[in-house]
């Protein structure tokens, strides 16, 4: 294995930047953060060894600017870069630029990213590798024209999905129920795709009413070994994006797990994969599985795999990037998951329409205790704006079995105090309480089928507490600016209190 870098630049923000920094420290590597000037006080900056200012502008000019990131690595003398997820994590250009700059790229080879990044190409490769893919419009012609697509649509049948070749993760896709809506859907998807991914190619896919979404964690090393680290059940979604993940999946029996795992390894092999990746499958009611896409990076939900296997996947990413082979026990199939793990994503959004919220976090108390891990990207005082992902933190639960994991998850969720901004905690609680989730018999339509989250009347103590706080802050000493609520101002006492007095 090559020597460890002295500093690792983390080209990201939020919880994943903090998460990667923790592993870096444990390896004796100084984590270097980056931030947009307008984002100077971001939470992650307070958790790095040091950070570099990427300058003015929005995400595009900063966290997404390859030149500025490379300059930041140079100025901080960081010799390696970890992209986290999102932002440039799946940019083949970035991977190439980092390597060309003589820096260590903590991720898969750029050509593997490219091959999987184009969904059409990827589907073709998978078919070639004998991995089942969702029936779609890309069986024949390289680039089918308008008429071909409309004809294929008729063959596939409705409802179906129009998908952008450059899309993924639920972005750049549209559901079409009737043939007559197809042309407009094609146009709109092309527009979005061009704007979002600079790639206007689209294709059609069979639409499954209520499939499961199950993914496999895979790892490859530069010596040709590829293994999987078991599955993650990701069917609890809203807006085609994951909210709760768990492992193991109740939908898999040993034989199916083995078959899907083998397919995942084949998929990774087909693109010469090195490092950490995730192969996503659709699983239909009849337990047929289809390749959906491969994410060529660390997943948001990677911690549930870490918890059940007792591993640090970020450490494994770094060691493999440094040339280490896959750990022997991984290759020997000696790895056995212990117990059950559940991840809940706390988003700054409402629990019914899932619309993002912004504001300032005034009180932030995290759950803790046995079997509870919180990976947070915010804290008390953090301002949540509109420019970045609304993910606030991840609550990761481990327990000996699924039933006790669910009880523990409910307990932990009930301990979480977040005041000042609306979160989706009520949605998370509703899922944990739903019979479908508890039975394990659920699919991607679980949340759609839940009753709406209704606002509850506050109990007496809540009204009393509100009155206490309202009144204490209501005495205005100077003009219209209310005085800081006395009982809430740590300085009120602090400044008058004297040690030894």
């Amino acid at each position, binding site marked *: 294995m090559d020597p460890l870098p002295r500093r690792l630049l983390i080209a990201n923000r939020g919880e994943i930047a903090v998460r990667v920094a923790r592993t870096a420290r444990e390896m004796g590597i100084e984590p270097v953060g980056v931030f947009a000037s307008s984002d100077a006080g971001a939470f992650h900056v307070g958790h790095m060894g040091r950070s570099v200012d990427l300058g003015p502008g929005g995400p595009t000019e900063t966290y997404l600017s390859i030149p500025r990131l490379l300059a930041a690595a140079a100025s901080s003398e960081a010799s390696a870069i970890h992209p986290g997820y999102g932002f440039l994590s799946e940019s083949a250009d970035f991977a190439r630029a980092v390597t060309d700059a003589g820096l260590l790229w903590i991720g898969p080879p750029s050509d593997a990213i490219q091959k999987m990044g184009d969904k059409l190409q990827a589907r073709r490769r998978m078919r070639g590798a004998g991995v089942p893919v969702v029936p779609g419009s890309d069986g024949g012609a390289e680039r089918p024209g308008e008429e071909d697509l409309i004809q294929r649509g008729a063959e596939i049948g409705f409802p179906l999905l129009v998908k952008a070749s450059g899309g993924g993760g639920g*972005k750049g896709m549209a559901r079409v129920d009737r043939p007559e809506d197809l042309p407009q859907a094609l146009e709109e998807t092309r527009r*979005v795709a061009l704007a979002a991914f600079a790639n206007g190619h689209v294709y059609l896919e069979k639409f499954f009413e209520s499939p499961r979404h199950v993914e496999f964690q895979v790892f490859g090393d530069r010596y040709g070994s590829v293994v999987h680290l078991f599955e993650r059940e990701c069917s609890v979604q809203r*807006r085609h994006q994951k909210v709760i993940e768990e492992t193991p999946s109740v939908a898999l029996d040993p034989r199916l797990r083995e078959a899907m795992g083998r397919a995942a390894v084949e998929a990774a092999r087909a693109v010469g994969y090195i490092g950490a990746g995730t192969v996503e499958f659709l699983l239909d009611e009849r337990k047929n599985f289809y390749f959906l896409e491969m994410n060529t990076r660390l997943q948001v939900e990677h911690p549930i795999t870490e918890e059940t296997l007792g591993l640090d996947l970020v450490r494994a990413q770094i060691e493999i990037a440094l040339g280490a082979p896959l750990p022997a026990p991984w290759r020997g199939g000696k790895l056995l998951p212990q117990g059950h793990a559940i991840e809940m994503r706390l988003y700054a959004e*409402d629990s019914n*329409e899932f*619309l*993002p*919220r*912004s504001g*300032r976090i*005034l*009180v932030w*108390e995290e759950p803790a205790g046995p079997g509870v891990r919180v990976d947070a990207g915010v804290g008390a005082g953090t301002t949540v704006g*509109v*420019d*970045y*992902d*609304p993910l606030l933190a991840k609550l990761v639960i481990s327990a000996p079995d699924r039933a006790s994991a669910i009880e523990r998850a409910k307990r932990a*969720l*009930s*301990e979480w*105090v*977040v*005041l*000042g901004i*609306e*979160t989706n*905690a009520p949605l998370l*609680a509703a899922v944990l309480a739903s019979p479908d989730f508890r039975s394990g018999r659920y699919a991607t339509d679980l949340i759609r089928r839940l009753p709406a989250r209704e*606002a*509850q*009347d*506050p*109990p*007496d*103590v*809540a*009204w*009393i*507490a*509100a*009155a*206490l*706080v*309202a*009144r*204490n*802050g*209501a005495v205005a000493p100077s003009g219209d600016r209310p005085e800081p*609520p*006395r*009982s*809430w*101002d*740590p300085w*009120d*006492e602090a400044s008058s209190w004297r040690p030894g007095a």
Partner: protein
Amino acid sequence: MGSVGRGFQLEARRVKLSAGERTLDVALEEGAASLGDRMVPFAPRQNGSTLVAVEHGGQVFPVRAVREGDRIFVWTAGRTFEFRIEPAAGRGPARIRSTGAESGLLSPMPGRIRRVLVAQGDTVTRGQVLLILEAMKMEHAIRSPRDGRLARLMYGEGDLVEAGVALAEIE
């Protein structure tokens, strides 16, 4: 009771609060609170200067509470509630809530105006997409609630808008 009185002055206090559709006059005196027409005994319990619990009918229940402007956030028994301080004399001016339900003309979420698809003076039809609002990697189409003429557009492309603000006026 070393904790009481610490921070809190418990001389009589009265405030009108609303939570969701409910509005209530709450008055606090030493040891008792009147909620609308009910009286309940209570006492605050503090951790240093932080309210951790409220005694209510002889038992002490955990609570967290914080005020920001005229909004108050309260956590208790695992649930969070938002209150508003209402002007003492009856309800104040109707406040715009950001549920996006009432009217497509209100911004349903904070975000940036990604595209403006119409111009002032245009005649618009019900359901027509007027603007595309983007926040946190998500696009949201703002549609016209009815047929009419676009009298005013409050924002242009790239503008930042808060939740619940008016985006356009239609005659």
